[in-house]
Structure formats: structure tokens, C-alpha cells
């Protein structure tokens, strides 16, 4: 029987406090977690994503809690409790759960396997209406221009010493599509998954801040006042859709077939996106599948994705120069994607009689539908009658397809 002092010492050692005092870097991670929680809960920036991610960060950084995702080295080796090293890829899931805790089990079963991003894409597809894009097909091309940020940052990252796989994973943040960023990083640079996922989702959450910044820097008031409805009246479209339901049902089947033939590596994302959309558009016959894909399954996947991504942000994995470089590079990719979409609209306006509001180019990145809502807010600020939401949605939805195709190209060349 030890003395009272020994008992208190053991009690103290049992708590997380002793480890936190020994390594105060945990405190910084709590601050990051609280900051993200503040953005999600108080500022309402993407709360469905930021709240689980932030809570994942919080619970992953309590020493002894075994909720942080362990980082395997480049050969996939991880240290076991007995001091030996073993390849994580050779370990059965129950052993991962036993050795490293339940969060690692979830992470390796759901995220590292690449299961959740396509499931989330299916839910996104079920919640997406391709109608605005089909009514304004020409505007979809700006969804391609906005992918420039991905490749520009890839180029810069290669120049400053990232490997091609790491540079591609960093650049894909510019696609502004969380599941695409995660899917690409899992395939190319899985050791960077934590910071890349955090950067991608944080910047998506900060769309209401970043888009106005870039728009203000690049667009004049006159350009932002371009009224798309008036332009439509001046130069009417020569195509009328007589049976929108039939078009909407055939569209996802056709797009999946085209993309699968040309960029098969993009099929896990595009295929699931279009499947989700198809079961929505069919209507009553598949309404039960639609309900599951857009509600139960999507919400379950979001919870696990958010918590697991947050749990990858342990202090030792996050607080290093490379991670900070990823956060900075991700911002550049994001801003460049918005800027390139705007620039393409400006070029278009130079050669076309029918003028387009540059905000349509700014929404060429994914982040559906927040980017479109933000741009509609900007246009109505300059002219309360100028609603560009439907036009922005056209390039915004095309951006989802564009970023998934860009990811497919990167995976097929570097994977």
C-alpha cells in the first residue's frame, strides 16, 4: 500500500493533464478545435462538416484517449505497444481496433479504404438538381476554367520540393470539393490526408469570406451589375426543353457513360454522383433509395468522415512546416480557382455580344450550393433585382464534374 502522496501521483499520472503539461502543443490543438467549433456553431459556416471535424480534433488530442489516428510512415509501418513495427496494411481490422483504438478502426475501414467519399458523392448527387445547368448549358464551361487553380498549385508545389503525388493532393484543394480532395489524397499521398482534408473543408466553410475577397480584387462594379436575365431577353437561347423530366433521367446515365469511357479513374466519384441523381430524378419508383441516399446514409457518412478526418489532426501530425505549407498552398489553390473562373468570363465578354456576370465564373469551383448563394448575395448587393443564383448554379454544378475529372486525371497519371 503506497502513501497518500503515491496515490495522488498515480491519480495525476492517470489524467491527461500530466501529458499535456509535459507537451503543451496539445493546447494549440484545443485552440484550433475551439476555433473550428466557433466557426461551425456560432458563425454557421458549414456546421454539418465543421462540427464533427472540430470535435474529432478535440477528442483526438487527449493523451491516453486513443482517439487520434496514428500516422504510418512512408512504408506503412506503425509502432505496436510491444515496441515492434508492423505494416498497417497487413493488420486485420480487429487488431487495429485492439492496438490503436476504435477511431483507427473506423479510419482504416471507412476512410483509408476509400469507401466514404463515393458514398458522400452519392448523397450529393441525390441532393443536386441539374436543371439550372441543363437550362444554361453554355455556362457549364466555366466549371472547367475554375480547375486551373488545381494545376497551378501543383506546379508551384513541385517547384518547392513536394513529390508529384503530394503536389497533386495539395492542388486538388482548389477543386473546393471535400470528398474529391479526400479520395485523391487517399490514392496519392495518404500520409497528408489530415491536413489536406482540414484545409479543404475549412476553405469550403470560408467560401463566404474568400469569394468576396477575390471578386472585390478582380471585378468592377459595372461587371457585377451585369443582369443575366436582361441579357437573356436581349439574346434569347435558341433551345427549349420540352420534357425536362426525360432529360434529367437520361443525363446522369449519359454523363456516367461518357466519363467512364474517357477517364475511368473518375468513375467512383462521378458514377456515384450520377447514381444518386438518377434515383432522385426517377421519382416515386426509387423514392425509398433516394430518401436513404440523401438522408440516412449521407448523414451517417458525414458523421464518420468528419470525426475521422478531425482525428487525423493529432498535434505531432499537424504541427509541422509541411502541414502549414499545405494550409497556405490550399488557400492559393482555392483563390486561384475562383480567379481563373472570373478571368475566363472576362475573356468571354471581350468576344461575345451576350455579356456574362463574372460571378458565374467565380462559382466554377465546386462548394455547391454555398458558392452560388454567396455570389447571388454579392450581385443583389449591387443591384437588388439582379438574381444570378440559377446562372451560378450552372457553373457550380459543372465544377463538381470538372473537379472529379481533374482528380481522375491526377490519379491515373500519378497513382
Amino acid at each position: 500500500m503506497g502513501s497518500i502522496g503515491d496515490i495522488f501521483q498515480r491519480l495525476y499520472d492517470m489524467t491527461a493533464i500530466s501529458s499535456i503539461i509535459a507537451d503543451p502543443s496539445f493546447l494549440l490543438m484545443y485552440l484550433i478545435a475551439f476555433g473550428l467549433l466557433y466557426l461551425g456553431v456560432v458563425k454557421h459556416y458549414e456546421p454539418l462538416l465543421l462540427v464533427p471535424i472540430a470535435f474529432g480534433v478535440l477528442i483526438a488530442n487527449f493523451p491516453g484517449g486513443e482517439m487520434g489516428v496514428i500516422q504510418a510512415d512512408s512504408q506503412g509501418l506503425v509502432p505496436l505497444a510491444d515496441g515492434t513495427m508492423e505494416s498497417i496494411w497487413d493488420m486485420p481490422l480487429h487488431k487495429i481496433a485492439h492496438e490503436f483504438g476504435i477511431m483507427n478502426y473506423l479510419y482504416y475501414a471507412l476512410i483509408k479504404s476509400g469507401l466514404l467519399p463515393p458514398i458522400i458523392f452519392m448523397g450529393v448527387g441525390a441532393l443536386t438538381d441539374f436543371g439550372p445547368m441543363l437550362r444554361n448549358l453554355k455556362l457549364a464551361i466555366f466549371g472547367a476554367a475554375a480547375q486551373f487553380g488545381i494545376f497551378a498549385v501543383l506546379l508551384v508545389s513541385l517547384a518547392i520540393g513536394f513529390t508529384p503525388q503530394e503536389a497533386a493532393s495539395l492542388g486538388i484543394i482548389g477543386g473546393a470539393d471535400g470528398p474529391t480532395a479526400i479520395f485523391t489524397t487517399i490514392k496519392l499521398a495518404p500520409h497528408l490526408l489530415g491536413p489536406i482534408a482540414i484545409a479543404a473543408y475549412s476553405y469550403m466553410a470560408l467560401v463566404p469570406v474568400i469569394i468576396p475577397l477575390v471578386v472585390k480584387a478582380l471585378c468592377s462594379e459595372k461587371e457585377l451589375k451585369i443582369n443575366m436575365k436582361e441579357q437573356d431577353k436581349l439574346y434569347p437561347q435558341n433551345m427549349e426543353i420540352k420534357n425536362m423530366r426525360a432529360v434529367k433521367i437520361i443525363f446522369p446515365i449519359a454523363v456516367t457513360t461518357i466519363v467512364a469511357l474517357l477517364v475511368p479513374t473518375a468513375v467512383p466519384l462521378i458514377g456515384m454522383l450520377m447514381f444518386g441523381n438518377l434515383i432522385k430524378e426517377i421519382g416515386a419508383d426509387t423514392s425509398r433509395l433516394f430518401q436513404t441516399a440523401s438522408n440516412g446514409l449521407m448523414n451517417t457518412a458525414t458523421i464518420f468522415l468528419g470525426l475521422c478526418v478531425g482525428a487525423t489532426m493529432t498535434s505531432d501530425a499537424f504541427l509541422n512546416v509541411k502541414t502549414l505549407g499545405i494550409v497556405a498552398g490550399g488557400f492559393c489553390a482555392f483563390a486561384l480557382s475562383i480567379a481563373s473562373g472570373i478571368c475566363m468570363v472576362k475573356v468571354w465578354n471581350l468576344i461575345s455580344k451576350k455579356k456574362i456576370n463574372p460571378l458565374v465564373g467565380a462559382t466554377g469551383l465546386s462548394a455547391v450550393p454555398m458558392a452560388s448563394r454567396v455570389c447571388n448575395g454579392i450581385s443583389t448587393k449591387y443591384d437588388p433585382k439582379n438574381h444570378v443564383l440559377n446562372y451560378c448554379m450552372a457553373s457550380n454544378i459543372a465544377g463538381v464534374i470538372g473537379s472529379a475529372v481533374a482528380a481522375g486525371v491526377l490519379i491515373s497519371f500519378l497513382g
Partner: protein
Amino acid sequence: MFGLQLMLIGMVTVFAILLIVIYGSRFLVYVINKFVPAEVVAAKEKSDNVPMDVLQQAVSQITGGKGHIVNVTKLS
């Protein structure tokens, strides 16, 4: 050099796929307009007083059809 090649291939592929989607969709619309009967949209009942109708329906729903609106007064 490799990065530039990748950028060129990536951007060309993204533009090409979206152009195929755009012109493929136009062709799809053309074929559907030509061969599929036009969608019949049910005509909506016209009402001169939509807000009042909505309020009446809400009251009917809540009271199980027993309640009726007698008077609506704007508070401020």
C-alpha cells in the same frame, strides 16, 4: 516540365469532358424534343389571395378542419 505536361493534359481533359457534356446534352435535348412527348404540367388553380389561402389551410390543418379565420389584423 512534367508539371507543365500534367497541367496541360489535365486542363485539356477537363475542358474536353465538359464540352462533350455540353454538346452531348444539347443533342440529348434535341432528340428528346423530337421523339418524346412534351411534359404536361398540371395547371395551378388561380387565386387572388394566396397568403390568406395559405393561412386558412394552416388553420384547417391544425384544427382538423374545425377552425376558420374570421379576421386578420396587421400588428405593426
